[in-house]
């Protein structure tokens, strides 16, 4: 992995004259199919809804108003704050947060274990961790659903070893959603943490223990600060996709565990059919994610100069 010398020499300007043309397809594709659509979505969120899907080109704040305020059925009652949607967002944050904690608890020891293996077997371990990520997310969620079913293998197994007397109701609970999210995004937690532990210079811990630091003190004072960027990156990589997840809450959570993803989907594909509202809900989700990423990249920049790299 350590061919940094070659890497430094390989960034050249051989194709400087052609670069604009070489980059053109990328620029065009991404700006036409990502940047412009997001801008149009922003516009849509201020338009008037048409009843079978679609929009009428009339400017209004109605979508955002519907999201945050409750004006009663006919819009003439005193304005109250509408909690339905805010609580869906709050629940999504909560679910995504718990899934993140769960994957941190399991991902950290795994990453640590892999990083302390001999050089050759590390690559194999990393490969084993990444395989499930490349397997269809839908299939993974479906297999989770299958596993957690009322007469599914997990309950059968627990009954057999007599830990429980009757099947646990796991499917359609918040726990099932968290497990699903955790299961979907665990590799995202393990890989960045692994990368930062691998870069960590273990002689530092030896130095710490030579200076009479306890094992715990070495972990919290020496190891953790230097791998913090990796841990934060892992948390972001799990939290962000969990927040907008659709499959796990939809297949594992049932109607009670509605999350942002399902709310948005329902505006376009489902019965609700309110495009401006769906656009507004997407904009709110996107802003949340962008703010989070901005805070994160600022943190990373701050950590870089003193990070000992």
């Amino acid at each position, binding site marked *: 992995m350590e061919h940094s010398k070659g890497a430094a020499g*390989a960034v050249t300007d051989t194709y400087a004259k052609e670069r604009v043309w070489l980059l053109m397809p990328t620029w065009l594709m991404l700006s036409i199919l990502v940047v412009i659509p997001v801008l149009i979505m922003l516009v849509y969120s201020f338009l008037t809804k048409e009843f079978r899907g679609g929009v009428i080109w009339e400017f209004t704040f109605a979508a955002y108003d519907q999201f945050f305020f409750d004006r009663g059925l006919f819009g003439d009652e005193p304005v109250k704050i509408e909690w339905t949607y805010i609580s869906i967002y709050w629940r999504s944050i909560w679910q995504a947060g718990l899934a993140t904690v769960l994957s941190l608890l*399991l991902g950290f020891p795994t990453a640590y274990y892999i990083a302390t293996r001999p050089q050759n077997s590390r690559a194999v371990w990393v490969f084993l961790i*990444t395989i499930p990520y*490349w397997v269809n997310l839908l299939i993974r969620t479906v297999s989770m659903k299958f596993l957690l079913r009322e007469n599914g293998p997990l309950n059968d197994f627990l009954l057999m070893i007599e830990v429980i007397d009757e099947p646990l109701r796991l499917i359609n609970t918040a726990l099932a959603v968290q497990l699903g999210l955790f299961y979907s995004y665990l590799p995202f937690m393990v890989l960045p943490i692994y990368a930062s532990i691998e870069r960590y210079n273990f002689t530092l811990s030896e130095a710490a223990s030579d200076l009479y630091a306890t094992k715990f003190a070495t972990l919290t004072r020496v190891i953790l600060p230097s791998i913090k960027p990796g841990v934060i990156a892992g948390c972001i990589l799990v939290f962000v996709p969990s927040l907008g997840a659709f499959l796990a809450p939809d297949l594992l959570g049932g109607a009670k565990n509605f999350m942002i993803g399902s709310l948005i989907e329902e505006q376009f594909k489902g019965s609700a059919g309110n495009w401006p509202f769906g656009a507004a809900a997407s904009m709110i989700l*996107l802003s949340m994610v962008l703010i989070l990423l901005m805070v994160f990249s600022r943190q990373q920049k701050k950590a870089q100069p003193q990070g000992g790299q």
Partner: protein
Amino acid sequence: MILYAPLVIVTIYSFNDSKSIITWQGFSLRWYFDMFTGPESAKFKVAASNSFIIAIVSATVATTIATLAATAIVRGGAARYRTASLGLLSLPLMVPEIVTAVATLIFFNTIGFSRGLTTIILAHIVFCIPFAYLPIAARMQGIEDTYEQAAMDLYATKRQTFTRILLPLMMPGIISGYLLAFIVSLDDFIITNFVKGAGVETLPTAIFGAVKMGIKPNIMAISTALLLVSVVFVTISYFVAKADNKNK
């Protein structure tokens, strides 16, 4: 390994002889035959061929675009272009998938593009580009430009240097980028579900539709088959990258 348990269990149960998914009635391949001959097989065959067409076209286009971009970013100098392009490239990875899905749907609707295979392919190309780009750029950064310098000293044109020297050297990166893009396209559900027109199904959307009615054994066989395709592709991609590291 928690990561593998659910997948292994589904694989095992896909060999179950029973018509219900609850009881185990012995080993059998009947659901795999059902995949080709069963009452729902026609629907899934169409979905599968759609999925593969979409994956092949989008992976090919995305890999081509990503190779050009990698050449410009790694070998094109000018840090300003590099940061801007990398920012643009990472967009599909940062924006939540459901937001991209909504935005793309609205976009196609606004310009009056009717939804179908073409819209799915366009949307897939976009999110495949970063996945194809990463291994290609990583590979190119590992190639020293002395070979190219030598070629040019020997009066090779820039085009010849690119096609005869740089491209062959980059091949492992390009192959692994292509395979990753292919799998990402094959696996996508959320964006496909939004931009597909009525009646057009891919394997994931067909599976999702069927699962909504309950998990049936034929679904488990299809899932296992799809799972196998992903694993094989990732493994090939891994070994292409690895075999190549040894050569150096």
